[in-house]
């Protein structure tokens, strides 16, 4: 197909419209669009007399071309614009440069050529010139005309080029594989903090020198950082190939916002729809680009070299999409099915007797009230509605401008209807007064409510009806098992079947309502968040289906009682943070990959709408998704590219596309595959896989699966990478970068979500499984492998403010061998913090930290630690505070004091976090490793 872009009159651009399968013609100056090709004559005439930007743009554009592709445009361009022709000649004086970077071709030659050209500011060689001068506009800017720019002192430029060359050389360095013997090297917690194996791309594969041109592991990481070229090589290594994506993560302090491309110039491959990224090649002197995934040649949009804001030529090499891996585009109307929706929050509050008694209602309404200002509402468009429910539904009409609100009761829950067409879903700003008044009153209103039972299903249907035309977020707060109406559930908890093969049945949805309703929600862009508070069985497994398929999240506060300040604080903090975080609405996510790679299966909170399209009505921050990748055919390119695109509406009413690009080298060498494996990504993937298996099969199968995977991996490593081959070996070898994998697998096997035990209530398990499948790596790793600190003898700088905030003590391996009877220890997994007090703790320590005279007076359990007037207490508090704040996500861990001789359940719970110890039937790390060794050597019975 010949692109009409070439035949366009000046000032016009053509863009292929996928939905209509034809070109859309855009007048760049005015933004006017039309379907019919513009006629050259009239437009030219129109523009000529005014001398408006388009002709200028035209000239500059041609000038660029003249410099680069004299051969293509011959004398034509020169005749059209003499000034630029002269410049063109100046450029021509340089040795003509051929194609740009072609990693597929002779890399060496290209590399040499690149180095030679390094010093020359030729527009085509984007990287070195960009580097050498660091001046964004030099191509077309005023400096371009000045001869001295060319005569720059050669030495520094060469030095820079040399530097660049060295950077490039990095790509040719082989991965060094260091083998570790697991039997002699105990796990070292610090290893988990190490970054994943470096991504060593072949030289010249990236057109940008920017260090952020490849994805940050916190956004996008792969289990293997050097992709095997064939599936047989991959299966030989026994490593899983999967991507771990956190497309919408919160920004660290001091981190810059994701760069935004706001000029609506979105260059995409015509065939595979890949967005332009730093790994494409420009060919034909920069007029076309070759897609890095499918090799298709595409036109470069004319506006790429035009700065629309200042209306002057721009520098394409400075464009964010060619320099950054993670960017956002402002999406034009082609990407919308309707105008951007406002953010909508519907709160469904359980006001049954139990809920009111636990203080949940009062805490929740107060939290909403306090956080009304933090709910994202920049444009004043955000809407909220509040529906309370017990066995009937209570709607609240909130008219504008008054403080009055009226309650409308609907007790017909079999056929839910909205009692009033308006004023139920109201604008926060407009109805602020009545909203505040209502939130202040709800607690009192239902204070005397003695009704027991919950019509959660009908309440969901009502909330859904209310917001279905817009979409948004439903936040359900529930203290009881839904008992009436649609979606009523039965108490199916049966202690007898815990720990048996039937247990996985309890982790599956009991009622189809929560799946079909989830699908309806997904269709109408409604996302559901669940806050669950029950002290008794609440069927978290079934209720968690709704958040799971509508990309929400489940929060569980077992036996919530607002009478305890800790409970109230935790819930209020997490709920408040949730309300304050900006969300992405109406999102779809797609991951594209280079030819030969296919996204095989998807794990996480979303609905899979087609083979590769994930529907997410609202994307919360800091949720992670795992995607298994299959190598379908042999890969011939030296590197592959993965690209995640999330089309979404921000909660500020702008349609955007977030694009994250990850480029990884390929390899035919098994040792490189091993040396580049990322243990953190692997365990994240295993966690997802294990949970999936525990639902489709049995809990036992899921444990066996993970264990078996590890054994296969070790066997494969032993046979192919060590001298012992297939024979027995006295060692248990693994590459250095994977040496924490066995202990992480052990941690996963001992995690509440899939642990072998007959004691774990199904609700706790289901919640833990929801966490395992949605936490980003940063939170998941401590959840699987908790951190353990010794506080009584922490180094003097620990707990004080250092360069990166509060300094944490060194973390210890998770074994009770490290306990000392007189010590104070801290164990935390990101969800809970335990302060473990040794029984011989000196009174001074107890006095300093807890303000109590002696160990005997100290009581175990949930607590709030008050900072006291002594340095040790302040340091301990600083450490606790730091632990609560250092990770992403809304979680605010509870602090428990655990006494060495305190109540057994609490003590066992705390000790169960020391996963390297033996507990009940679960093996210690030593036992686990030796059973692994037996398995790997082909001996040894079943199990681990």
């Amino acid at each position, binding site marked *: 197909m010949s692109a009409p872009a070439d035949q366009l009159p000046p000032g016009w651009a053509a863009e292929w419209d996928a939905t209509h399968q034809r070109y859309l013609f855009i007048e760049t100056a005015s933004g006017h669009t039309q379907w019919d090709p513009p006629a050259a004559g009239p437009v030219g005439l129109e523009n000529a007399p005014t001398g408006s930007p388009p002709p200028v743009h035209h000239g500059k554009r041609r000038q660029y071309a003249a410099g680069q592709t004299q051969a293509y445009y011959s004398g034509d361009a020169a005749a059209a614009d003499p000034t630029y022709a002269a410049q063109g000649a100046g450029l021509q004086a340089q040795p003509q440069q051929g194609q740009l970077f072609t990693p597929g071709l002779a890399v060496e030659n290209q590399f040499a050529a690149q180095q030679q050209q390094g010093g020359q500011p030729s527009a085509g060689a984007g990287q070195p010139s960009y580097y050498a001068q660091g001046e964004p506009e030099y191509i077309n800017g005023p400096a371009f005309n000045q001869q001295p720019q060319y005569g720059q002192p050669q030495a520094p430029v060469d030095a820079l080029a040399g530097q660049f060359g060295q950077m490039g050389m990095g790509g040719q360095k082989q991965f060094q594989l260091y083998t570790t013997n697991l039997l002699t090297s105990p796990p070292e917690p610090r290893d988990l903090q190490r970054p994943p194996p470096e991504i060593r791309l072949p030289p010249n594969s990236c057109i940008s020198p920017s260090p952020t041109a490849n994805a940050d592991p916190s956004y996008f990481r792969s289990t293997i950082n050097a992709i095997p070229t064939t599936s047989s090589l991959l299966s030989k290594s026994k490593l899983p190939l999967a991507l771990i994506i956190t497309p919408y993560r919160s920004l660290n302090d001091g981190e810059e916002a994701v760069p935004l491309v706001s000029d609506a110039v979105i260059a995409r491959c015509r065939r595979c729809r890949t967005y332009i990224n730093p790994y494409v090649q420009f060919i034909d002197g920069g007029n076309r680009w070759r897609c890095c995934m499918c090799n298709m040649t595409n036109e470069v949009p004319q506006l790429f070299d035009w700065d629309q804001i200042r209306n002057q030529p721009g520098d394409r090499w400075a464009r964010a999409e060619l320099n950054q891996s993670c960017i956002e585009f402002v999406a034009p109307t082609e990407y919308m099915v309707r105008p951007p929706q406002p953010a909508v929050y519907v709160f469904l509050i359980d006001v049954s007797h139990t809920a009111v008694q636990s203080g949940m209602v009062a805490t929740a309404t107060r939290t909403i009230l306090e956080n009304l200002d933090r709910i994202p509402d920049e444009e004043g468009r955000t809407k909220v509605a509040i529906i309370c429910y017990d066995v009937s539904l209570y709607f609240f009409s909130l008219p504008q401008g008054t403080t009055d609100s009226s309650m409308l009761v609907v007790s017909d829950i079999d056929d839910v209807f909205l009692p009033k067409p308006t004023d139920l879903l109201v604008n926060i700003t407009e109805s602020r007064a009545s909203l505040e008044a209502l939130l202040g009153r709800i607690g009192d209103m239902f204070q005397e409510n003695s009704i027991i039972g919950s019509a959660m299903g009908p309440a969901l249907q009502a909330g859904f009806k209310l917001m279905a035309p817009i979409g948004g977020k439903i936040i359900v707060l529930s203290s009881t098992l839904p008992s009436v109406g649609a979606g009523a559930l039965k108490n199916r908890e049966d202690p007898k079947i815990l720990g048996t093969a039937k247990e996985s049945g309890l982790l599956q949805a009991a009622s189809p309502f929560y*799946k079909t309703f*989830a*699908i309806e929600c997904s*269709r109408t862009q409604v996302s559901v968040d669940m806050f669950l508070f029950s002290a008794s069985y609440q069927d978290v497994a079934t209720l968690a*289906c709704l958040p799971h*398929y509508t990309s929400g999240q489940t929060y569980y506060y077992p036996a919530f009682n607002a009478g305890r300040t800790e409970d109230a604080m935790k819930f209020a903090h997490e709920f408040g943070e949730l309300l304050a975080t900006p969300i992405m609405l109406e999102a779809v996510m797609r991951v594209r990959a280079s030819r030969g790679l296919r996204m095989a*299966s*998807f794990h996480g909170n979303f*609905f*899979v*709408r*087609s*083979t590769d*399209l994930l529907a997410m009505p609202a994307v919360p921050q800091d949720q992670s998704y795992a995607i298994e990748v299959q190598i379908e055919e042999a890969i011939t390119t030296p590197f592959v590219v993965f690209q995640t695109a999330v089309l979404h509406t921000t909660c500020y009413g702008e349609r955007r596309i977030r694009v994250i690009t990850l480029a990884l080298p390929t390899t035919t060498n098994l040792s490189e595959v091993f040396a580049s494996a990322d243990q953190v990504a692997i365990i994240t993937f295993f966690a997802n896989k294990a949970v*999936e298996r525990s639902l*489709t099969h049995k809990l036992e199968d899921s444990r066996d699966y993970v264990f078996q995977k590890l054994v296969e991996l070790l066997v494969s490593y032993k046979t192919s990478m060590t001298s012992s081959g297939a024979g027995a070996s006295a060692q248990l070898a693994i590459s250095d970068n994977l040496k924490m994998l066995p202990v992480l697998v052990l941690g996963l096997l001992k995690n509440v979500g899939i642990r072998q035990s007959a004691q774990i209530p199904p609700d706790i398990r289901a919640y833990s499984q929801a966490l395992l499948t949605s936490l980003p790596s940063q939170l998941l790793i401590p959840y699987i492998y908790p951190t353990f600190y010794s506080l009584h003898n922490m180094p003097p700088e620990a707990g004080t403010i250092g360069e990166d905030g509060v300094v944490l003590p060194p973390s210890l391996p998770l074994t009770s061998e490290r306990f000392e009877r007189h010590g104070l220890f801290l164990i935390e997994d990101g969800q809970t913090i335990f302060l473990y007090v040794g029984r011989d703790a000196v009174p001074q320590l107890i006095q300093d930290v807890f303000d109590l005279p002696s160990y005997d007076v100290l009581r175990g359990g949930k607590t709030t630690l008050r900072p006291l007037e002594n340095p040790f207490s302040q340091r301990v508090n600083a450490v606790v505070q730091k632990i609560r704040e250092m990770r992403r996500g809304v979680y605010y861990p509870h602090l428990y004091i655990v006494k060495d001789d305190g109540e057994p359940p609490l003590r066992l719970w705390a000790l169960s976090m020391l996963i390297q110890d033996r507990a009940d039937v679960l093996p210690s790390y030593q036992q686990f490793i030796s059973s692994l060794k037996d398995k790997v050597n082909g001996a040894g019975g079943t199990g681990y």
Partner: protein
Amino acid sequence: MSGWLFLFTVLYSAGLLFGMIFVVIMFSDLESDYINPIDFCNKLNSFVIPEYAAHGFLALLFLLFGQWTALLWNLPLLAWNINKVMNNAHMYDATEIFRSLPGHQKEAYFKIGFYSVSFFYYLYRMIAAFVADSEF
């Protein structure tokens, strides 16, 4: 008499065969994204029970007419279907469809094979019965 029975079952199993081919076509439609999983499941779920019932009816006919070989041939599938209904696993679940698709496809191909073998077996029995009838 049994000739007429088998004539009926030949036509009947042909109908079931076409039904399964329709299902397989739907699967490939889903894979190539011509239909979204929600519509796909709604559409196919309305055919699941009728298909099982039809097959059950066939087995019932063989039972009533005392065609023990034919009944024996149909029993495994009947048991399989009943087991699925008992476990509440017979419906297509839109939320998990892409995960369970390979399994469903395998089952559909197997059923196509089963119904086509049935078709030829009934055809043979029909001809054999009519030939036997005409000899008297």
